[in-house]
């Protein structure tokens, strides 16, 4: 069984695409449709090794989710990268300040995404 990666995106298609890329590389993908579900997934599953999250999502956006997750000491070491169509420096700065460790602008390159996940979960 591969390492578990949480993919948070309100688009089922994006979750599927990320899941396919990581699944074929041996990772096990857990999905969440918004920030709230993402926080619940992380709180309820200690086996999650990394989080890949969209920024623009209903209910709770990705940046809010990163802040909520990182508030808990037990999640301080959990790597979170943002996967979004947005690329504004101010947002990237905001994500970094919240505790995210990386930022990828869609459309993503599956090979690069896999390599990044392998690096951050090694």
């Amino acid at each position: 069984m591969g390492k578990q990666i949480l993919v948070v995106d309100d688009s089922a298609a994006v979750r599927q695409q990320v899941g396919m890329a990581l699944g074929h590389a041996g990772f096990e993908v857990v999905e969440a449709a918004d920030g709230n579900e993402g926080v619940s997934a992380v709180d309820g599953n200690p086996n999650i090794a990394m989080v890949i999250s969209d920024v623009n999502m209903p209910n709770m956006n990705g940046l809010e989710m990163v802040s909520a997750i990182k508030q808990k000491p037990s999640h301080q070491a959990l790597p979170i990268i943002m996967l979004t169509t947005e690329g504004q420096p101010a947002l990237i700065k905001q994500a970094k300040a919240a505790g995210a460790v990386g930022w990828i602008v869609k459309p993503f390159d599956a090979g690069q995404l896999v390599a990044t996940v392998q690096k951050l979960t090694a």
Partner: protein
Amino acid sequence: MKFFWQKRKKGSSNRDGFEGTTLGKTSPGIPPEEDGPAQDSHFPNAASPSPLEPAGHPLESNVTEKGTSTDPPEVPLSHQMANTGESVREKCSVCDDPETLKTLFSQFRGKINGQIHAAQELSEKETLSIGKCIDDIVVHARDYIQESKDVFEKNFSDQNTALEGYLNFSKNTLGKQSDTVKTALTLSDDISEAGEAVDRLAGEAKLLALNATIEAARLGGTSGNAFGVISEEMNQLSNQIASTNRMIGETIQAIRESLPALMKQTNEQNEKLEEFIGAMHHLKKVIGESMSNSDAAGNTHLEMILNLSYSALSHLQFQDPMIQNLQKIDHVIRDLHKDLGTRLHLEGTAEKSEFSQLSDQPEFKSEKDKNTSGQNPGEVLLF
């Protein structure tokens, strides 16, 4: 189909003032409002139904309209919207009922959002289907390559086991054959020695017969005759023993002469078998290398398929940008609505779009900002 304002200024186009803001993605947005006769009552001069009628399925809607409508070719929505601003302003200057205009705009905006949601749902559904197909292709390719490899390995292993078994049996048989020949040679030597002993016995019997003959002559008479008979019998027996022993010796000699040839044949067969075993081991090595090459080729093909699927995945990610571009339409309408409200001194116009989330934050305000961010699509930025 035409909007009412297009009747007033056909072909006018004005995109100024329609700069949209960069939007966030959607939550279930403003639902399209129900159509009804009341809507068209606001368009007394309209010759055909409103172009803003919601369609259950965008593609289906197009086909139906193209197939059955007798109206002139429909003006693209983008052109209609581009015409909207100036035309509405002109219309507003003569509009007797601002509240009606406000309602129309709300309906218009609701229908636009409905279309956006329909497009989003359709693209989501189709993208998921395509993604599933791509995934199936990769999985099936991987399974096919693995199954081919397993079948090839099993066949090779079975054949190898059978051949090894036959070769071992042949080798053992030849070994036993060789041992048997060696044993036969040893036994023939023993028989030859026994034959020499028999020859000696035959000689002694002949000597006894001679002595009996001499004794018969010395005694003479009846006693001599009896010795003569014994002497004759002993002589014949000696001759028979010698004759039989000679025959045995000749047979043994023939066997001894044939055994080395048989031994030679056995050795030659053994050498051929060793050569064959060597050839089989070489063939096994060649097939093993071929299998490795085949595995490598299969893995290369699988990697190519995987890379192609990754490439397809990249192309499938058109949905977010497409939806965001569509959502800009809503913001155009909102700006227009706001402008209209300001001009008509109406309250409650240009409410915040449900598409907007982060889009009202300063960071999301300008497309220009986004383009100068320096972060390229696909680029991985690790902090």
